Every structure is written in C-alpha cells, then in structure tokens.
C-alpha cells in the first residue's frame, strides 16, 4: 500500500511539473520582489545561465525557516543579525552582500506629526509617538519589521509596551501593511521600492528618508550542503556569481522606478 502510494505520488509529480534543464528555488523577501527587480534580473539569468529560478516570496523569518529545513536552495534576505546567526549555526556556509536600498517613513500627506522636517530618524519616531497618530507595524518578524523594532529601540522606546490605540502590528506582508496604512491614513516604515511600486497610495506621502541607519543591506545565502545534501549548490553558486558579476551589479544599479534608482549594488569580488 505504502509503495503504491509512493509510486502514485511520483507519477503525479512527473505529470504535474514540467522538466527543466536546470532550476533552483530561491526564497526572497516581499520587499525585494514587490520592487519589480526580480522580474528584470531573472529573465537575464535564464538567458545567460540557462537556469530557471523559482522564486518564493516570503518574509525574512519564513525565508530563513525554509532554508533551515532545506526546502529552498538559497535565500536573498535583509536582516544582518539573523543572517550571521544562521551562518554561525551552520545552515549556510557564508553570507554574501549583494546590494542595499533604503527604508523610508510614509504617512498622511498633511503630516500631523511633522516628521518631514526632522533631522534624524530618532526624532521622527519620537514625534510620531508623541503625536498619537496611528502607526502601522508589519508585526510579522520580517526583515522590515525587525528593522522597525530596532529603530524604536535606538530611539529609546520599547514597541511591545506601546498602546494599541495608535501602534498597530498587523502581522502581514509589506503590501498588505501598506494597504492598511492607506486605509487608516497612518504612518508606516517601508522600503523605497515597495513604496514606489505601490498602487493604492490614497492620501499617503513619502515623508522622511536619508538617515544612514535606514540603509538596508541585502545578502545572498546558499543553503549548506552539509546540513542538506540534496540542495542544488552548483546552481545556487552560479546564481550568486551572476548577481555579483559586473553585468548583474550593473543591472541592479540601472534599475529605475519612475526615474529613481532603488538599489545600490555593493558586492565584493569574493565572499
């Protein structure tokens, strides 16, 4: 019975998935995917390497989890501390920095908390808190959420203790959180790419950016073959080499939305 079950699974699988010359699974963060950069890069990867990259769009937390269990071959995420822990525990041989973009604060176009004229992010967040204006937090343990929590902490606050009357963790991806923010006309921390591509802006406006601490480093981590012998290391490294090649880095730098550059490539020549 068990054998019949196994055999039928394999047949079903064969029927359903087309045969590819070479493919791999890459988990990326919503912020990276929603920017539209993957739609520009991956067709080139296919052309140059004959490699089909199947992209899973998840939060950084889930991406790390998928990689830890060996369900993907590599991940592209942005949460340096979590990445370093991940490498330390041996789930990935190394992390390779690829590029960075920046986080921005978005809010009501009238800007009742007056964050548009502040000098640094700490002051901007303090003003939002003391104004009592609604603030949407991702609340999903993603890279963006972790960044937001760390920014509050740097500014001397503990988000866990915030009143839910104004601080609202929605537990959702970047797009869903932005939808909530535009429905409530609330402040929110987002990455520039997701913001520029977001089509449901309503009354929201880009209000604060530029503090160096808001730079957001993306790293590429192949999954360790020691933990998971089945992962496609060759393909994962091929993709890494492409992303860090002069062509890949140039394409990242030249990617524009509405005339704005989103990502700054900063891969070093060796990991």
């Amino acid at each position, binding site marked *: 019975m068990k054998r019949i079950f*196994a055999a039928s*699974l*394999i047949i*079903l*699988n064969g029927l*359903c*998935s087309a045969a590819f010359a070479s493919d791999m*699974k890459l988990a990326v963060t*919503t912020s990276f995917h*929603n920017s539209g950069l993957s739609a520009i890069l991956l067709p080139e990867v296919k052309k140059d390497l004959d490699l089909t990259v*199947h*992209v*899973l*769009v998840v939060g950084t937390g889930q991406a790390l989890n998928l990689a830890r*269990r*060996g*369900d993907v071959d590599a991940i592209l995420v942005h949460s340096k501390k979590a990445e370093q822990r991940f490498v330390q525990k041996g789930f990935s041989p190394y992390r390779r920095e690829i590029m960075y973009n920046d986080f921005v604060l978005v809010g009501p176009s009238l800007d009742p908390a007056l964050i548009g004229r502040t000098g640094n992010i700490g002051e901007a967040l303090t003003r939002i808190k003391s104004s009592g204006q609604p603030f949407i937090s991702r609340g999903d343990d993603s890279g963006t959420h972790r960044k937001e929590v760390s920014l509050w902490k740097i500014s001397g606050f503990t988000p866990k203790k915030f009143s839910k009357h104004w601080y609202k963790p929605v537990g959702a*991806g*970047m*797009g*869903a959180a*932005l*939808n909530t923010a*535009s429905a409530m006309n609330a402040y929110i921390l987002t990455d520039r790419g997701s913001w520029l*591509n*977001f*089509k*449901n*802006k309503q009354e929201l406006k880009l209000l604060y950016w530029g503090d160096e601490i808001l730079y957001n480093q993306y790293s590429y981590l192949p999954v360790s073959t020691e933990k*998971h012998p*089945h992962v496609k290391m060759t393909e994962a490294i091929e993709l890494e080499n492409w992303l860090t090649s002069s062509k890949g880095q140039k394409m990242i730098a030249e990617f524009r939305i509405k005339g704005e550059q989103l990502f700054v490539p900063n891969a070093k020549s060796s990991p």
Partner: protein
Amino acid sequence: MNELLAGIGDAFSLLIALDPDLLEISSLSLQVSLTAVLIAAVIGLPFGAWLSVSRFRYRRSAIAILNALMGLPPVVVGLIVYLLFSRSSPFGVFNLLFTPTAMIIAQTILVTPIIASLTHQTLRELWFQYHDLLISMNASKWQRMKTLLWEGRRGLLTASLTGFGRAIGEIGAIMIVGGNIDHLTRVLTTAIALEVGKGNFPLALGLGFILIAIAIFINMAVHILSKTEREGTW
C-alpha cells in the same frame, strides 16, 4: 465603486487579450482543484455510502467527527502538509513541496470530508426508502452501496460541486504548500493575494471575477452534461 468598475474592465481586457499568464494560472487552478475533487470523490463517495448502510458501535461519533472535518481550517491543513513534505521530514525525499502535487494533496484533504459527509447525508434519506426492498432482495453491502450511489447521483453531484467550490476558492493551504511560484504553482487565488499585496486592486478584482466566472461555468457545464435541472425533470 470606481475600483469595482475598473476591476470588471480589467477582467474583460485580460479575457479579450487571452493573456497567456492568465490562461496558465487559470488552467493550473482548474487542474489542481478538479484533480483534488476527483480523488476526494473516489474516496468520499464510497465512504459516505458505507457510513449510511453500516451500523456499528461508534457510528454516531464517526459521523460527528466527519461533519466537523468539513470545517478544517485550510491554513492548518497547509501547514501540516508542508511539515510532512518538507525536506527535513519523512516524506521529504519525494521532493513534492512547492509542486502542484502538494497542492492537490492539501486540497484533497480539505474536500474529502465535505464529499463524504454530504454523501452520507444524501444517502441516509435514500436508505430509509430502499431499506426494506434491498433487505428483502438479500443484497450484499456492496450491492446496497452501489444502488444507493446510483439512485442518489443527483445529490452526490451537488456534494462534489460543493467540494469543488471549496477547492477552487481556497488559498490558505495552497499558498503554504505551493508557494505561489510564478509559472509553477501560481493559481488564481494566490495571484489575487499577490496583486492585493501590490495594491493593484483592479487587477486583483479582475482575476477574482474570472475565478467566479470559472466556478459558474464548471457548475453549469456539469448540470448540462448530467442533464439535471432541465424542464420535465424539475
């Protein structure tokens, strides 16, 4: 309101252009959900029939549990199937995660209790009518089940269509086990969620209308092919 109109507009322009991506995700939606319903019917119809002609000690609890399973939360089923087929798990070696097969398995689990339970409910009524006849004919249990399944086919069709309705509109389970991978496991519901995430409401609505249209089309097609609800058979 304007967004609703824009959604209808988007639905039509996608349909008129016969957008290849739309065809791909729609056909995958149908492929996954119809296969799941087919497998669920193969399991659920005989099981429901067996339940209605059998009398055993824990029958009442079995029926209560089956009815409760109709409300299985898709996200939980998705998570369980994910954990079963994850590479670090017993079935990981089959390499089924993030394939349409995994999506079919998850939806089969969701749909089987619905079909089995509705089958049981339909055939139980019939069994009261046919009981004396079938007993007097000394029909075996298998013959009784066959007779009931045949005589109750109209109701069973509705049971299967209910299961299909659950499957085609489902997202919680297939998002987790399928992963919404472009050109591989993206179906209508996960594509809609993606467009909502991008704030692209008109396209999301457009895809939603197409999903509803497909569901209506399948139901009509089944009724026409099976010649139910026609004049004279009302």
